[in-house]
């Protein structure tokens, strides 16, 4: 078993292999998003028990979407990641406190330990020697090289190559050491690697088609749980990997149960058929009741996702910043948070989660002020027509707003927005679509007027938002990225380029702070609140630790156990 890597210590106790905050300031290796755990158990808190000597019992984790992608480098969604975290391992991961913690690597590379060159171009990774794949084969640097090569293989259906495409001259120095060179300094790569799982060379090098092989549906990893069985449409069973190199696992089995309807999912949690409600958690309208359930603990924790109104900045009235400001002033955000989301989320002004090291404090706070909104529009020449809708230069202040059909909370939000904006002479019409439609070309190619969407802007825990706000990242204009807002700003481009080159965390904090101010000032997005998830855990189940730096809070099931 590996040693507990621990947290930043007050007394400056040094944990081998873990860079402390000072080291980050000195060399910065891309930084992790430190955050204060906002998960709060509403039920009575239990006295933490002691993990058992050997795995005992099982955990049934309910998911509202079915995990179907088990190759961790291929296109997948959050629920797939829940499985990847159990079966595979990254070189290092980011814990809830925002620290990089070595996993397959024996230490996180820094300038001090010689893992990183001062210019950020040379990476030297030392690996653990005691890691075994689930089939008993030893894990080596060849597996890391194979994984990085596979990502860059043009025939492979990889999720994305952000950061990885810069990796050149990979050299396996020893079974437990690998070096490579970066084509250009790219500080977010440290964070990207924390979410990149390593796959087995000895299995995948033999397959004729990297996109389809038995491995894809019976994966072999180095993670705490081995693949057991999958009953499509029902559940996935994973068994404890007793030869795991890290802490745990403490349960014999993990069952991911697919329950598509969130009401049914909550009911099964309530009746005790499931032990943990994973993605998408408990619906806000059930949270109050869930808190009163005996033998259940409820955690409400922040996520990195920011719920916002995405304006298409190339669409008529939205091109005018005054209009965006007036619309923003006219939104009764508190009503959306309190009435529709039961007061669970936190209001925000930034695209960066408030728990992250890069979060900029003191951004201008939104104020619900329809009077000022009306005055702004009057002054800007947006005059009310006979229908009550404002116009300027032949352009009417009317637009559509879209979101995923069937998302009740967002649909109710739209109704509030219609009322709020009608009061300032703006006419909004609803144009909702199923998920498979709205997030296709409609979103990708900026064919919308405005959209209500929750987006995680972070690259892992890194605030590099070049693909989101960079001028060269507008898909509708042939760009590479997902700047569907069509936001263009020379100053933003400058800050983004600067931030990606910087390795000093203090400098990066300043750079991304300036960027947040700029985005807030330009109102490239109209932020509503920071995302949240309410999750339920059966009493007696220990080890659950929400982690804003991962896409799923069941990232550490290896540490879960029954007290």
């Amino acid at each position, binding site marked *: 078993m590996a040693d507990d890597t621990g947290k930043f210590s007050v007394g400056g106790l040094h944990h081998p292999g873990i860079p402390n905050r000072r080291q980050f300031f000195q060399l910065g290796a891309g930084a992790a998003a430190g955050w204060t755990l906002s998960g709060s158990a509403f039920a009575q808190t239990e006295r933490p028990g002691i993990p058992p000597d050997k795995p005992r019992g099982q955990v049934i984790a309910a998911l509202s979407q079915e995990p179907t992608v088990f190759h961790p480098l291929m*296109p997948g969604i959050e629920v797939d990641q829940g499985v990847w975290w159990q079966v595979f391992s990254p070189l290092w991961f980011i814990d809830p406190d925002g620290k990089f913690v070595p996993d397959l690597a024996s230490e996180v590379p820094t300038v001090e330990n010689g893992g990183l060159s001062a210019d950020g171009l040379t990476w030297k990774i030392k690996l653990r020697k005691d890691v075994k794949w689930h089939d008993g084969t030893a894990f080596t640097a060849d597996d890391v090289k194979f994984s990085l090569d596979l990502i860059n293989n043009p025939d492979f*259906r990889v999720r994305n190559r*952000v950061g990885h495409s810069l990796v050149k001259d990979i050299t396996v120095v020893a079974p437990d050491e690998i070096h490579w060179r970066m084509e250009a300094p790219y500080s977010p790569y440290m964070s990207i690697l924390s979410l990149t799982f390593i796959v087995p060379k000895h299995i995948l090098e033999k397959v004729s088609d990297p996109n389809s092989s038995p491995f894809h549906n019976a994966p072999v990893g180095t993670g705490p749980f081995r693949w057991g069985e999958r009953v499509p449409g029902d559940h996935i069973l994973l068994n404890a990997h007793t030869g795991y190199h890290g802490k745990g696992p403490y349960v014999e089995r993990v069952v991911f149960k697919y329950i*598509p309807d969130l009401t049914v999912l909550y009911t099964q949690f309530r009746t005790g*058929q499931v032990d943990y409600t994973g993605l998408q958690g408990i619906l806000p309208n059930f949270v109050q009741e869930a808190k009163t359930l005996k033998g259940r603990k409820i955690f409400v924790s922040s996520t990195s996702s920011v719920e916002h109104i995405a304006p298409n900045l190339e669409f008529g009235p939205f091109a005018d910043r005054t209009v965006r400001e007036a619309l923003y002033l006219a939104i009764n955000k508190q009503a959306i948070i309190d009435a529709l989301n039961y007061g669970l989320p936190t209001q925000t002004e930034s695209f960066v989660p408030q728990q992250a090291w890069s979060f900029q404090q003191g951004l201008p706070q939104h104020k619900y002020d329809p009077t000022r909104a009306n005055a702004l529009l009057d002054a800007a020449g947006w005059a009310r027509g006979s229908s009550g809708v404002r116009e300027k230069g032949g352009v009417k202040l009317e637009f559509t707003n879209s979101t995923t059909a069937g998302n009740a909370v967002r649909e109710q939000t739209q109704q509030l927005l219609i009322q709020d904006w009608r009061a300032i002479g703006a006419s909004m019409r609803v144009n909702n679509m199923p998920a498979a439609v709205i997030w*296709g070309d409609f979103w*990708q190619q900026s064919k919308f007027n405005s959209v209500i969407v929750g987006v995680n802007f972070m690259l892992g825990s890194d605030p590099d938002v070049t693909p989101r706000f960079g001028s060269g990242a507008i898909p509708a204009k042939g760009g*590479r990225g997902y700047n569907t807002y069509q936001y263009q700003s020379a100053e933003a481009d400058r800050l983004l380029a600067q931030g990606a080159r910087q390795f000093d965390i203090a400098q990066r904090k300043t750079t991304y702070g300036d960027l947040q101010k700029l985005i807030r000032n330009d109102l490239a997005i109209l932020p509503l609140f920071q995302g949240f998830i309410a999750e339920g855990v059966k009493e007696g189940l220990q080890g659950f630790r929400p982690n804003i730096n991962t896409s799923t809070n069941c990232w550490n099931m290896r540490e879960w156990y029954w007290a």
Partner: protein
Amino acid sequence: MARYVLNRLAQAVILLVIVSAIGFALLHLAPGGPLSQFAASAQMTQEDLDRVSKQLGLDRPLPIQYLDWFGRMLKGDWGKSYRDGEAVLSVISSHLGATLELMTTATIIAVLLGCWIGILGALRRYSLFDSLATVGAMIALSIPTFWFGLVTIYVFSVTLGWLPAGNRETVGDGSFLDLLHHLIAPAMVLALVETAMWGRFMRSSMLEVINQDYIRTARAKGMPEWRILTVHALRNALLPMITVAGLQFPTLLGGALVAETVFTWPGMGRLFLDSIGYRDYPVVMGILMFSATMVLIGSLMADILYAVVDPRIRVS
């Protein structure tokens, strides 16, 4: 008869081709696509999406895609799911058992209960029982399956704790009793509408038969009532039920779609919904073709069976 069957089979093949072409076109022409799920969450750029789209062959003209799919399907290759890379036939067969289990149980309940209610209603026409059965059937046909399913869960699982709130089995158990325990609620919910339908059809059919001259003659001859019912009336009244049974598959599949969602039953209905949601074209097409084939076979079997059991019918 043989010629009739061959003719019907030829028609069925033509129909299947038409269904496949229309289904394929509608599915692909609908906005959105299988990669949309990644656009919002997986941080894939348009370039990434285009690359994957090309690797999946989705960038080709639609007729080419259709001909390619159709040609491979004729060879037994129904393609692979975009979601998990499994062969479509394997995906369908892995869900088929659960649906058949649910549908068969629901059908058995519906036939037995529905026929009994229908026969009794016909024999005691306008009685209190008949009136209650009629009102009950109207309510059953009007109740949304989804709502009834949730009410069933609330009453029998949450409040009384008698039945599990869903799932096909307890993971790790899977005994016959466990399976049966899990089957009761979804089968009852799915059987509700079916029972009402069978009851109404059976009542009408029975009423028609017991008013026939030969029944009156049998009674005049002093034949015992139970014998009149079982030997003369019931056998003839059941004939139209063959047609009803033959056309039940689509209705059952529709009901299963909802029941499987509410009760987290890993069957074809839910697979179809999920696949539509994800735009998993190969699986949706596979289910479409499988269902269409089942409907055509059901209809053909009903016609043939009708001719076999009723000598007055001559197929040509």
